[in-house]
Each structure stands twice: as C-alpha cells, then as structure tokens.
C-alpha cells in the first residue's frame, strides 16, 4: 500500500489535534495540502475545529494566504456568473453552473475553501452554437486553434473547446452534457435539467440539485481521468455526502436518482472511495445496495489498487513505486471509457504523432 497521508488523516478526522500542532507534522500537512489544491480547505476546517491558534505561526500564515485565494476565487466566479448571464440574456439562454461554481453560488458545504481554475457551465445542446456566438461576441475567445482539437471537442466531446476572457483571463468551459456522447455510459441530460434550481434574483442562472452535484462530481472524478485534483474532488464528495446524509431519506433518494441518470457505476466508486479514504459515514446497507454498480470482484480489487494511489495527494511523500503507473493507467482508462476502441486508436495515434513532431521541432 502507498504511505499513509497526513492530509487524508486530517480530512477524515482521524488525527489527534496535538499531532497537527507539531512542526514537522504540520509542515507535511502543508506540503500535501498545497500539492492537492486543498490548502484553503484545510484552512477553513482548522477554523471550524478551532485548531488554528494551536498551529505554528508559520502554518497560520500559509493558511491565511490560502484562504485569501479561495475568497478571491469565489468572488471571481460570482462575477463571471453575472457577466455570463448578462451576455446570454440577449437570447434568453438558460445556463447551469457546474462543480465549483455551483458550490459557491449555491452556498453548498463543498464551497468551503474550494479553489478552481475555470468556470464550468451547462447549456441546452440546441442553444450551444448561439451560446458560443454570444460569448465570442462579448470578449471570450477560443484559445486552441488546432483543427484536430477543434473537431475532437465539437464532434466527440460534451463541451466546447475552452474559452478564455480577453481581459479578465478567466477560463470558461461550456458543456452541453455531463458525459461525452461517445462514452460507454449514457445519461439523459434532459433529466439532469429537470432537477436544476433557478438561483434567487437571477433570470437565467441555474444550479443542480444536491444529489446531482454529487453524481456529477462522481462522474467527473471516476470517468474523466484528470486526477491532479482527484483528492480535492473526493473531498467535495465527502463534504456533500456528510451534509446531505443528515436527512433520513437522502440515501434512498440518491440511489434512485443514480438509477434515473444511469450513473450507478460512478456512484459506486464515489461511495466506496469516500468511505475507504475519508471515512465518510456511508451506511453499510447503502454500500451493499450500490454494489450493483460494481464492476465485479476482480475489477474492484484492481481499481482499489489504482485509485488508492491516484487519489492520494500528488506529493512525493505519498507516492510508492506504483503511483506513477496507477495515474497513467487511470488516464488511459478514462479515454477507454470516453471513446469506442477504433476511435480511441485513431485519437492516440494522432496525438502521439503530433507530440513526436513537436518534440522533434524543439530539439
């Protein structure tokens, strides 16, 4: 097994407060949290647990600094949402914030110390072209002009190539679905839209229902393969699950919703690894019931091997000799899930060739 991580212990609440106050342990927590983009969350949790005054002054400084970044991120995403709404109001295009933006605007627990580098929105597929045109006319621009990448996004992906605002530099991902249309799993996006809520005082701005926030985060984490922020996303799931589970009916509703959206498999993984790595209090019978989403006993063991490494902080103190391989294999797996085999072969050949040409040009 990979070395135990002090950040995982901290997030799962299984560490003694006295130990965190000790300089070397505290510094290791700082380093792991920084590399997992979770330092500002650690800062908020320390305040909540009333731990901050017991920490070394240097750690307190780092936590203060990290909190400022999260607050700035949140201010920025609210502003971006306003700007997007202003632009899309020209054609009355409704849009739904996803992930970090939705946590912040919806004042969800997962907004605690959450940092992000881009804003993700969902728009109805039939309004996608109109949305893109409006955004481009109003200062967002495409940053990737490679014809292959353009085609890759537009014909196979569930999002447009990323847009960047000319002046503010913020990145915007415009989605029309939560899973690529070419992926193995199919999920009906109209059902997702049905359970979104309009945000108070807004005309076009929506956020997903709590259960859908969880399911979407699970899909993103366990199907998308971008695991640099894997632990941050797992911690989001942990906070959302802990918060929602105070309602008795929550678990049943979540499982029902997973069936409606055909997302039993990602939910299975989400609950399994939240429970295993972050001690999330998922009732045993819920774990048993979600096991119908299991990929089978053998695959489960294999996935445990991969995810226990890839979801640990991306820091030298958490790696064992298999970590690099595990991350790479999960990246390959995410592509395998996204595309049928023939298309994947073409895509990899194309990417490999381009990388080789680029390398040749740089030497």
């Amino acid at each position, binding site marked *: 097994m990979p070395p135990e991580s002090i950040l995982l212990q901290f997030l799962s609440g299984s560490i003694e407060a006295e130990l965190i106050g000790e300089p*070397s342990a505290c510094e290791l927590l700082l380093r792991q949290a920084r*590399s997992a983009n979770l330092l500002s969350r650690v800062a908020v949790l320390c305040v909540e647990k009333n731990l901050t005054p017991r920490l070394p002054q240097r750690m307190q400084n780092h936590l*203060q*600094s990290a909190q*400022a970044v999260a607050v700035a991120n949140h201010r920025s995403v609210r502003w971006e949402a306003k700007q997007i709404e202003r632009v899309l109001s020209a054609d009355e295009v409704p849009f739904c914030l996803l992930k970090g933006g939705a946590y912040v605007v919806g004042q969800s627990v997962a907004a605690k110390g959450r940092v992000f580098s881009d804003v993700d929105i969902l728009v109805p597929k039939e309004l996608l072209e109109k949305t893109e045109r409006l955004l481009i006319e109003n200062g967002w621009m495409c940053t990737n002009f490679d014809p292959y990448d353009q085609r890759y996004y537009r014909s196979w992906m569930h999002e447009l190539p990323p847009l960047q605002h000319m002046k503010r530099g913020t990145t915007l991902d415009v989605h029309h679905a939560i899973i690529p249309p070419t992926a193995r799993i199919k999920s009906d996006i109209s059902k997702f839209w049905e359970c979104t809520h309009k945000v108070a005082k807004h005309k076009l701005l929506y956020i997903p229902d709590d259960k859908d926030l969880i399911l979407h985060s699970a899909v993103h984490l366990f199907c998308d393969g971008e695991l640099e922020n894997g632990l941050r996303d797992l911690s989001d799931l942990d906070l959302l699950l802990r918060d929602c589970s105070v309602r008795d009916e929550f678990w049943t509703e979540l499982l029902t919703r997973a069936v409606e959206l055909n997302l039993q498999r990602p939910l299975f993984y989400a609950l399994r690894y939240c429970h295993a790595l972050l001690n999330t209090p998922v009732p045993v019978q819920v774990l048993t019931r979600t096991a119908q989403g299991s990929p089978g006993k053998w695959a489960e063991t294999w996935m445990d091997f991969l995810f226990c490494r890839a979801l640990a902080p991306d820091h030298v103190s958490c790696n064992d000799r298999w970590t690099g391989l595990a991350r790479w294999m999960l990246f390959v797996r995410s592509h395998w899930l996204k595309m049928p085999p023939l298309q994947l072969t073409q895509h990899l050949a194309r990417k490999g060739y381009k990388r080789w040409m680029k390398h040749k040009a740089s030497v």
Partner: protein
Amino acid sequence: MKLCSLPRAELRRRLKEEGLGLSIGPFNTSLKSHLSVVAEGLEQLYGAFTLTGDADFIDFRVSLNSPPGLRSWFRPQVNFSFDGFVPFKPLPQIQGFAMFEWGLNWVIANNAHQYLIIHAAVIERNGVVCILPGTPGSGKSTLCAALVCKGWRLLSDEMALISTATGDIYPVPRPVSLKNQSIEIIQNYSSDAVMGEVVMDTAKGTVSHMRPPQLSVEQSGQPGTPGLIVFPKYTAGAEPCLVSLTQANALLKVAENSFNYSVLGLQGFDVLGELISKCACYEFSYQSLDEAQEKLESLI
C-alpha cells in the same frame, strides 16, 4: 549559524542531500541542487544568511536540477521545482542561480497573501522606509543598488511585503538583480558592490546579482514602517526632480504595481489606503545617481 561558516563540502552535501535550509526574510526556504553554479552563487551572495535548524518549519522547499534525459549531456538545462511542481520551462543550466532568484520571487508572490505584495524595491534610512515601485525600465533596481551601496538599509530589491495585519513592511533582503548597463554602472559607482556571476542572453538580457549588505541581512527580522513612496523614472539629461502625487493618484499607481491586489479584494484596498495615508508620495525623475541620493536624503 551563517552560511559563510559552513565548509564548502558540507554546503554542497546539504544541497545534494537533505536540502540547504536558509532563513530568507520571513520565509524559511530549503534548496536542493546538484548544480555547481547554484552552490557558487550561494557562496558569493548568501554568506550572511542564517541557516535554519533541523527542527525548523520550512515554508518553501525548492530545487534546481537538470531535467531528466539526454539533455543533461547536450546543451544542459535547469528546472525550477517548488516541492514537485514545475512552474516554468527549463532554462540553460548556466542561468541556474538566476533561476533560483526568479523562482523564489514567483513562489513568494503566489503563496504569501498574508502580505499585500508590491513590485518595488524597499530601502530605509534614519528609520524612514522608502518604497520604490518599479515599472520595467524605471531604473528602480539600479537606484536601489546605488543607495544601498551608500549606506541605506536594503529591505527588498523586488517586492514590498506589507503585512495585512499591521501595515508594516517585512524585509526580504535578497541579492539585488541588475541588468545590462546597470551592472557596470554599479560596479563603477561603488567599490563596495560585490557582484555574482554575469550571465548573458537571458530573457532579461545580461543579468547579475549584487550581494545584499551584511547589516541589512542581519536586520531582516525587523519590520519597518513605510513613510515614503517614490516612483523613480530614469530620464537621460534630467535634473533630479520630485513631483508630489495626490493620494488618489498614488493609490492607483501602487495598485497597478501590486502582485496580489486583486487576490486580497477589499482587504487589499484597505491596506493600500492605510499605506498611502501615512506616506509622502512622489514621482521622481533623475539621471545622476549621486544627485538622486542627495535629493532623496533631503526628504528624510
């Protein structure tokens, strides 16, 4: 214990093995490197800095090493890593020490938002701390180096760290970065100036660093209260001339030169307002360094 009292071999061993811990202003920094250009740069310029103890909390762990692969034999390069994160593309290995300075600037600017950080040189004389915000080409580093050679205390050549809690300026007196003609100008200006290696063809042209005065390094634990903000502008043929700035104008100009004003939001505005209200603010054009010194010393 200071870096200069560390034997050569021990310095190199620490750089290669556990990392060399240095107390640099408010930050404990640990540096690992296999490159001799880095070890030499440290010996030349960081001698007066205090080493951290084994049990000390390290704020930033950085390393400068050659990227893996054949390139280490053929046109060798150097990578800057911040605890495993590599923010820049590799540079030619000969720029290794300069990259340490640039990398550390980046690390501080992005990870120390307990301060409002202004791109500026900061110096002090008779208890008056003077901030020289630097737009490129303004000559702030040259002016700063010259004044420091004439006995001003160096608080920083690159960034003013203004505590969001107290409004005081925290010193980080690191080597002063000089470019192109400034290197020779300062060498001719003062025989006290000790310069590191001169490296040509960097992204900023020819670059060298001047050793910070020992006294400034020894006083790096003492924050100062800002009293003067001067926007220098080197102007060929100009008599030294100070023009008073309104507070509003000064605030906007300082904000433009801040690295993290937008991160700090309202708090940044408050800290900046507080700063401006206790400082006299000027635009300053000058040509001769001696005249510039005289003029600035008339203000304190």
